[in-house]
Every structure is written in C-alpha cells, then in structure tokens.
C-alpha cells in the first residue's frame, strides 16, 4: 500500500469504519443486561459493545444496523463485525450477517518534508482549501480527503477504503512536493 514513486512512504491505517446489518430487530435492553462489555446509551438509543480481540467498538441500534469502528485494516473490520454478530446470535437474536461495507478509512502518512501550505493553496486552488484557524490544509480529491498539516507532523488521509487512501496519498504527494519547504525551517 505504499506510494510508488520515490521513497516508500509509510501509510499507517489508524481506523477503519464499517457497517453491517443483522436483518432482525435487536432488543437493546437484552443486549445491555446480558451482553458482556456493553455500554447502554438509552438517551441515544444505542448500545456500544467493545471487543478486545480485534480491538473494535460497535454501535448497535435496535433496527439491526451496526457500525463498527476501531479496526486497523479492512479484514480486521470484517472479522470484528462477524465476531460481534456471533455475540448477538449467542444472546438469542436471529442474526444474519449481511450488507457488510467499509465506509471509512483513516490513515496517517508522514511526508519527509515540510510543506508550504499557503503556496500549495494558491497553486491548487479548486481542490485545496486552507483553514486559517487550524492552520491546516484540506485537499479534496475525487474520492478522498486529505488533511495536511504544515510541517513535520503527519498528514491525515480519509477515504472510503484503504486502497483508495493509498492512491490518494500518491496523488497528493507530487503536489505537495512542489510546495515543499526548504529543509532548514
């Protein structure tokens, strides 16, 4: 998953968000009382269930929709989701694991150079937008969004799946390269 061109950039996926459905109504109270490692949030109408093994947190709604966060890879997200569905099945619900979809991937990538944000914004006007208050930069490419901070701290990329994020970083890299700051800050 590394960017091809020059050096290999380390793209570290920090969060994968996925959803799936159980195709059955879930009684939140039952889950809250009998499930393990659950947090009931009646005011919002959901139950959080945390798993240790793939370290994920799932938000469970009574409609049967479940959002799974915290995984570090797409496979892990799927595994975690299935384990979760299994837990619910064991609680007595007629769970059918379906409509699994990774909806969001968050990755962190460190550029080996600092970037001149203002220049970058000027050069890439339509897709880049500079946020003065945060002193950071948002780049919107076709299917993803990159959040770039000015100097050494890593940039953050957000996309619908990991491959996409990798591609995104690749695409942004040259653009960033153009506006890189000289080494001596």
């Amino acid at each position, binding site marked *: 998953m590394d960017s091809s061109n020059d050096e290999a950039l380390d793209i570290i996926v920090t969060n994968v968000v996925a959803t799936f459905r159980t195709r059955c109504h879930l009684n939140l109270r039952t889950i809250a009382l009998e499930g393990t490692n659950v947090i009931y949030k009646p005011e919002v109408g959901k139950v959080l269930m945390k798993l*240790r093994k793939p370290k994920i947190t799932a938000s469970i709604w009574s409609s049967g929709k479940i959002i799974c966060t915290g995984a570090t890879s797409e496979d892990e997200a799927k595994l975690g989701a299935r384990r979760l569905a299994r837990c619910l*099945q*064991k609680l007595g619900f007629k769970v*059918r694991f*379906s409509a699994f979809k990774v909806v969001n991937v968050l990755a962190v990538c460190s550029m080996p150079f600092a970037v001149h944000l203002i220049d970058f914004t000027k050069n890439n006007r339509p897709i880049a937008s500079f946020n003065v208050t945060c002193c950071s930069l948002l780049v919107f490419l076709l299917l993803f969004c990159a959040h770039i901070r000015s100097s050494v701290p890593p940039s953050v990329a957000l996309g619908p799946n990991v491959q996409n994020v990798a591609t995104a970083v690749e695409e942004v890299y040259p653009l960033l390269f153009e506006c890189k700051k000289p080494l001596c800050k």
Partner: protein
Amino acid sequence: KQPNTNSERYEKSTAKLYLSIIDDVIDSMRELFLDEGLEDRVLDDLRHLWESKMMQSKAMEDFRKNNINSSNFVLQLPATSVVIPASQNIHSFPVKASTLATFSLPAALAYPVQIPAGVTLQTASGQLYKVNVPVVVTQAPASQQPVSHLAQKATERREAPASQPAAVQPHPILPHEAEPSSVPASSVTQPKTSLAPSQESCLPQLPPEPEGMLAETEPSPQPEPVNLSVTASPCAQLSDFHNSAEEALTQLDLDYNYSDLSDIVQLDGPADNSDLEEGDEVPLEENDFLGIINAEDPLNSGDDVIEQDIPDLFDTDNVIVCQYDKIHRSKNRWKFHLKDGVMCYGGRDYVFSKAVGEAEW
C-alpha cells in the same frame, strides 16, 4: 486484641450493621409470627440460623472477638478417646478413663486443629458430630463454600437419601451452594482427587439467605455456627463422601440443576438446540421471497467466526451492589463514583456510603 487494621474495623462495623438489621427484622416479624400461630421458638430458631449463616460467610474474627468467653467448640469425648488441649495441634493425649470428657476450645484457638478418630464434636449450638476418621479442623477462608463439609458428618447426621444417583455435575450445583443452609463454609485442607474439582468450581454466594427457604428444603435441621473442614485420610471414604455430597445436594430442589432442564417440554418451535446453527435454512427462504439481497450470509456458527476468547475471566464473586453518583469513561479508562452499597470482596462484606474507583478495561 483491638481491631487495628482497616479491614478489621470494617468487619466490626459491618457485623454490627448486619446484626442490627437482623434484630430489626426479627422484632418486626414477631407480631406477624404470633398472628400466624407460630411459636416464638420458631422465630428464635430463625434468628439463630440467620446469624450463624451470616457469620459463616464472613470471617468469624469479629464475632469471636466479641465473645471471648464462649467458645465455638465443645468437644465431647467418649471415655475411650483422648482429650484435646485447646492450645495445640494435637498429637497424643492422656486417655481419661471415666465418663465423658467435655472440653471447650477457646475462641482464640490456633487453627488448624487435628482431631483423631472416634471423637464426637459438639458445636456451640448443640449439634453433635461423631467423627469416624481423623479430622482436621481449619478456619475456612470464608471464600470457600460447602460441598466438602458433608463428608464424614454425613455418615452420622444425615440419612443419605435412598436413591438419587450422583449424576449431577459439579457446576450446576454451584448456584445453590449457599442453600445447603446450615452447611458451614468449610474448606478441605488437603483436597484429594474427587474433592478437588468440585472444590475449585465452588462459587460462593453472597451471605445470608433467608432461613424460611432453607427450612423447607432441608428436612434435617443442622445449624452450624462453626467452620469445620474435614479431610479423610483413607481415600476410600472420599468416593462415599463425594456421592453423599452430591446426593444431598440433589435432594435439594434446585432449579439450576441442569439435568432438570431437560425435563422441560418444548411446546413449539423447531426441534433443535439452543446453539443456533444458523445460516443455512433461512437465507434460502429469504432469497426465494425477495429475490436478491446478499446471499453471502453464512454466519457459520463456530466455523468462521470464532467465539470471543476469554469471555469469562469474569466468574468472580467479588461484587458490589450499590447506587451510582457518576460513572465516567474515556477510551478505556473508567472512573466510578458510587454510593450506598455493599461490596463483597474475598468473601467479606464491606458496607459503604461512598466509594470511588478507577479501572482500566
């Protein structure tokens, strides 16, 4: 000896609180009992049972400290046996030729006490136990519960129920360990083979159970303020004991007995077991009906989806029952602000009006 550690002070105040609760309840029941036509004696028995059960479950320290004079042990020895001095572990003793020798063990007895065979033990409440084999009396760590006690004493006191083969597995017995009422919290000092598994799987319940329940289930009355543990030297006795333990327990009408569950008749629903063997039948139906959807459903229970490892490192008996002021969590750090509750930790009860805690998940 004054209680000078925190836990000892806790013990004292908890014991006081519990005793006062018992007093209140008993007193307020007095009229009711009389109205129902029950003798006062019944109420007193109830109080006795309750107190003794309660005492067993917590450490006995406090009670003893309060009653230095009265002992919990009265050893009655038949003429032919030996007298056991209070302050030692026993080895050999002079034989008293004459009549019964009664001996009281003082409260501050140093455990464990070894008692040779043929001795009759009488507890403070007057129950007699004839011991046929050498016995070691230890102080129960208060976190252990019955099973074992039934041992040798069962030979004399209990009429082992006629049939009732020991088909019960140790686990189902657990939830009702506390029920064998008068059974003292005893521990086996040297767990032998058949004892060990049931002993380890013993999970004690929270202390006092209302005596009313007990009176019904147990025909033979056995109040036991005293912790007795029994180790039998001859191994042959163990299997008897194990059987009698199970027999005695199956005698109690326990709901949790898993073998009983199989008697429940299923009135409707498919004839399968509770482990959902999902995936196969239902999605097919769905597909017929709705045409498409995701046919890739199969939650092959067990195959793909392995179950959560370490689900029950939670089989603990340390529980807190209370109200909460505030419970807060940040990522996996939890902070608890609790109030008005009881904590059962390590077999002991600690009552609190405020408790603050932190934990990491």
